[in-house]
């Protein structure tokens, strides 16, 4: 009963959030200067031409009227037509979403592996030079933003030692007929490991650039809570049972110490998704973020709206998943 209620409340708040986001975006991009129609017409177009196009896209109506019309469409799954690309926004946006999802999830996995390894290392050799090294590298990783890491990586692995691709998502020669846009996933189940390797070689640097700052945050927080947990009685008791340091850290302390980190990772993951906008641009990766920048440059209002709504939806879903994971991992929150 309470579970059902919680789900209902959750859905309701999500709907309200998305509506709020829609209103803000809709109004803001129309209030700021810059005219999408002007971008479409060649220089020297007459006022009549402009007026005609304005009417065609409905920009001659009031913002409120435009919003109602747009919302009516959204309710039926129609997010309007992209002005610059002249295709339905829903198709465009959903077509790019898998690329961004694959990139973000790969970055998240990399961040968790790197951050987790650093935290475990720092805990295993706490109060030593190794821990100091972990602290220093985490501090450095954190004080440099992701796009700068992107440039550093391009310099290292694209120029000085060119082992990874610096731009795009896949080598054109390898473009097999994908039936979904989840290339990485699809190439795996179709056992096309050559394609998969090519995709990874393209994604590696942008994913790493996104992952480094998050890995540093995970390393710091997880190490801190691991070290606190190591003083607790049940850890001491496990030692007296004959367990060694490695077992005590990974089996006794980690399952409990990971909980606060998990909440933080949820929040930080949404920042990471936000970071894809610049990183995708930097690496010419054909994802949502790259499309978002183009949409803004072209004043493609319907496309901007669609992308922002999708990002907002993505953030809510991530938070929901984190909350659910938290309950799964923490027996104290589970009801009998």
């Amino acid at each position, binding site marked *: 009963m309470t579970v059902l209620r919680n789900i209902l409340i959750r859905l309701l708040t999500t709907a309200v959030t998305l509506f709020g986001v829609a209103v803000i975006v809709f109004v803001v991009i129309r209030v700021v200067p810059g005219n999408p129609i002007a971008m479409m017409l060649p220089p020297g177009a007459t006022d009549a031409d402009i007026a005609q196009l304005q009417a065609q896209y409905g920009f001659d109506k009031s913002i409120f009227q435009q919003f109602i019309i747009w919302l009516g469409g959204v309710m039926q799954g129609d997010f309007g037509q992209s002005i610059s690309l002249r295709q339905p926004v829903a198709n465009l946006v959903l077509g790019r979403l898998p690329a961004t999802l694959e990139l973000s999830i790969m970055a998240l996995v990399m961040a968790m592996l790197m951050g987790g390894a650093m935290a475990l290392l720092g805990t295993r050799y706490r109060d030593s030079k190794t821990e100091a090294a972990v602290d220093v590298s985490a501090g450095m990783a954190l004080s440099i933003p992701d796009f700068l890491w992107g440039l550093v990586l391009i310099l290292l692995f694209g120029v000085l030692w060119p082992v990874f691709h610096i731009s795009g998502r896949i080598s054109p020669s390898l473009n097999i007929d994908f039936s979904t846009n989840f290339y990485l996933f699809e190439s795996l189940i179709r056992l096309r490991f050559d394609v998969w390797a090519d995709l990874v070689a393209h994604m590696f640097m942008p994913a790493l650039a996104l992952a480094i700052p998050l890995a540093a945050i995970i390393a710091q927080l997880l190490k801190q809570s691991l070290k606190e947990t190591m003083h607790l009685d049940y850890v001491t008791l496990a*030692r007296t049972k004959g367990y060694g340091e490695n077992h005590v850290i990974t089996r006794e302390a980690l399952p409990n110490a990971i909980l606060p980190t998990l909440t933080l990772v949820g929040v930080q993951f949404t920042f990471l998704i936000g970071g894809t906008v610049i990183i995708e641009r930097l690496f010419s990766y054909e994802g949502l973020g790259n499309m978002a920048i183009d949409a803004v440059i072209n004043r493609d209002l319907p496309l901007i709206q669609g992308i922002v709504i999708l990002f907002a939806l993505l953030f809510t879903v991530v938070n929901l998943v984190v909350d659910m994971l938290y309950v799964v991992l923490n027996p104290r929150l589970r009801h009998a």
Partner: protein
Amino acid sequence: MSGYLSIRNLTVCLKSGAPILRSVSLTVSAGQVHGLVGESGAGKSMIGKAVLGTLPRALHVTSGEIWLDGVNLLSLSQTERRKQIGATAALIPQDPLTALNPSKRIGPQITRRLVDILGWSKTKAQQRALELLDEVHIPNATRVMRSYPHELSGGMRQRILIASAFAAEPKLIIADEPTTALDVTVQKQILRLIAEMQQRHDTALLFVTHDLGVVSKVCDTLSVLYAGKVVEDAQMNRFFMRPIHPYSAALLAATPTYTDPTGSLTPVPEHVIEYVEKEVAEHDVRAAR
């Protein structure tokens, strides 16, 4: 070597060199209960921790020997020592609320080490855990095994920890103030249970407490500790009739009794503290030489 656990001149210091334990010697014979009393900060828990190898990182053993089952623990490598302790000794911790891992079910917390460390089969360990839970009077043992710690009361958890301590049939159990964190009503039951289990399994028991009343009920011998120094080592009967050291006598006199509930609390007199402080200082001078 007499005694199952035999500590010889154990000195433990802070990194700064300040002594926490001052050449402590004590012996726990097989199947006997040895009490370790002293006020807070006297270092009684540190003795248990030194034996089990769980001293805080800021402390280290500077000299002495700890003989357990005929082996000097301090002469072993860290790994050997851990194995030796895991196989021969066990701890009943002070606070049952924090001594069980909150994210694991009770069953594995008892059985895992039997499988991991002692190489038992899973079914045998499971069987053993059920027997033990029965021995510590836990009803519905099968259901309790599947529970998480937060679903059980403090008394229940302490029973589980006692069962777990006896799981590998250790020859020595160190009980570190095992009733301090419990309700007074539960304290009595737990105390009786520990005594009962100790007798049934014929284990040597080092019982750390600040409560002389508790000592009188369960112990055969005892050591009185002040500022990390053993001031008196005695048989139980003799101690309560005729304590030799003035600090012991004062400690006995300071024990509140139920027979005279109106009587005000007697502190340990000033001159006794001065006397014992002087002894400790003389010891340090001798040790420095």
